[in-house]
């Protein structure tokens, strides 16, 4: 019974924790402009994150060490540093976007300007990272993030033409008013949002925090293979509801408030209140995850003690990094930069950093010195190789597409 609850809780938190500011904004933007015609990018991204999260979780469970703890040791300091700079830079950018996302969510319900919320949100995030237990952060915010299921309910309540939505989702097409370059730009952005590097940083380091062993592999796989795809369905529900309500009006999503309008149309005040609760939980949870991920990756690279499973006094460097990045993120946001723009940039640069994150995972998950008999099978390696090619294509195309389309204009 205890194991059943552990599996159920893991799946639920995986669903609730899957969506972050990048998924919220990008899926709503894409739904409002392209309908579900770019949905395959989300599906491909979700399959990819499942594949590599399982590998990194397996490495953590069997070796007792986080994947990126092993990168420097296995691939040398140069590749390790490249991996650290690329992936950590994007994760820090995402951290800024998530804190901004919490502030925007609070602005939505209070009408108090987001800039006034930023210091308080940053303080709350830091306090949670410093004082709260890892399981409390993961479970409470993950479960509250399930509020975003309201988008799936809203989509069902709106009564769309399901056949038309399904047709859009399986057909490679675009509205006449959009260009193929813009279509490709958003496909790469959605792919980057689904496979954002911090998810595997956090997943593998979280496995060490929770002291996974080889006995936990089944629970870990249930979380990944059930929780993540259901989280991906939430992303599609956000895009679908935007496609049904916003696209016919020609409304382009530039704010978090516009993301919630389809829920208001379908479910009224209570629906919006639940959606905003979901926004706050999802962005706050992701802020904690990205903040921890930056701390994890830096501490793991330099070989310092890290993690929430030791007292802060035993991991001073790790907690100092958490404090400094929180201050830096707040400082960036207080310049008045639009968190939505930061989000858009972070998902594109996520795509650029993908090879630096996922290539080392594939190498380590094939090394019997670390995972013993649990090395990748043939099918996993075949899929991993196919995905590395996809990831390379997305990484190479991301910045040229951003320039050509003027960030998707």
């Amino acid at each position, binding site marked *: 019974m205890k194991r059943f609850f552990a599996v159920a809780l893991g799946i639920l938190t995986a669903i609730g924790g899957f969506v972050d500011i990048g998924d919220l904004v990008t899926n709503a933007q894409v739904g409002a402009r392209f309908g579900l015609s770019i949905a395959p990018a989300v599906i491909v991204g979700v399959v990819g994150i499942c594949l590599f999260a399982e590998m990194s979780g397996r490495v953590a469970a069997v070796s007792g060490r986080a994947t990126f703890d092993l990168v420097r040791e296995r691939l040398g300091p140069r590749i390790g540093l490249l991996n650290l700079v690329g992936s950590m830079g994007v994760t820090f950018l995402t951290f800024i976007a998530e804190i901004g996302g919490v502030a925007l969510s609070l*602005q*939505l*319900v*209070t*009408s108090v300007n987001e800039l006034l919320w930023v210091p308080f949100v940053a303080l709350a995030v830091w306090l949670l990272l410093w004082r709260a237990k890892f399981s409390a952060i993961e479970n409470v915010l993950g479960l509250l993030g399930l509020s975003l299921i309201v988008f799936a309910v809203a989509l069902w309540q709106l009564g769309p033409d399901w056949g038309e939505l399904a047709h859009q989702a399986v057909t490679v097409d675009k509205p006449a008013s959009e260009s193929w370059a813009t279509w490709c730009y958003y496909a790469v952005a959605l792919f980057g949002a689904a496979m954002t590097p911090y998810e595997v940083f956090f997943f593998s380091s979280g496995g060490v925090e929770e002291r996974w062993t080889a006995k936990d592999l089944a629970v870990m796989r249930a979380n990944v293979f059930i929780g993540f795809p259901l989280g991906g369905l939430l992303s599609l529900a956000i895009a679908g509801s935007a496609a049904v*309500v916003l696209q016919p*009006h*020609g*409304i*382009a999503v*530039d*704010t978090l*408030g*516009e993301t*919630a*309008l389809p829920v*208001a*149309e379908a479910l*009224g*005040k*209570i629906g*919006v*209140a639940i959606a*905003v609760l979901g926004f706050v939980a999802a962005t706050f949870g992701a802020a904690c995850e990205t903040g921890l991920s930056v701390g994890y990756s830096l501490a793991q690279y330099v070989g310092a003690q890290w993690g929430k499973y030791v007292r802060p006094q035993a991991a001073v460097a790790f907690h100092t990094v958490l404090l400094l990045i929180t201050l830096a993120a707040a400082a960036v946001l207080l310049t008045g930069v639009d968190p939505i723009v930061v989000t858009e940039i972070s998902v594109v640069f996520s795509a650029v950093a993908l090879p630096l994150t996922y290539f080392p995972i594939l190498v380590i998950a094939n090394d019997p010195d670390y995972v013993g008999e649990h090395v990748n099978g043939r099918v996993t390696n075949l899929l991993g190789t196919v995905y590395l090619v996809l990831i390379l294509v997305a990484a190479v195309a991301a910045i040229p597409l951003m320039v050509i389309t003027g960030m998707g*204009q």
Partner: protein
Amino acid sequence: MNRRRGGYRPGVIRVRVAVCCALLALTGCVPSEPSATDWRTSARQALEDTASEVETVALVLDLESGERLPGRSAQVAAVESEEALGKAEQTLSSQQPPAGTERDDGTVSDLLGRAADLVRQARIAITAGDEGAYDDLRARLLDLSDDLDAERAELR
């Protein structure tokens, strides 16, 4: 013979610095002076962004009149649209309209001004809770949205 220990003669360097400065001065001119094609692209973008915000406020008014938005979220949405309109208008107005686009510039400026004014009125009505004005404002916003789309098509 032009090179001296792998470097360039000071005269060559001076010319290059002067060219760079001239290029920077030309490209950094305020207001910028785009070609007619570039100006039309910017104008279409401004009209599209404005139409999106106008439709957003119309939808917000509709939802607010049906009491489907909690707290002050309608007010926040209207303010955000108003700010976005200001940015769209400012981006275009900072460009010098090229010769031959005077009529289009006048029409586009007029439409952007009407949109800013109407959205402002909608924000005031929402903040004041003046529900009696919602239907009329919404109808005017939708009419304006049609005008914005028509002008955008005209500029193609």
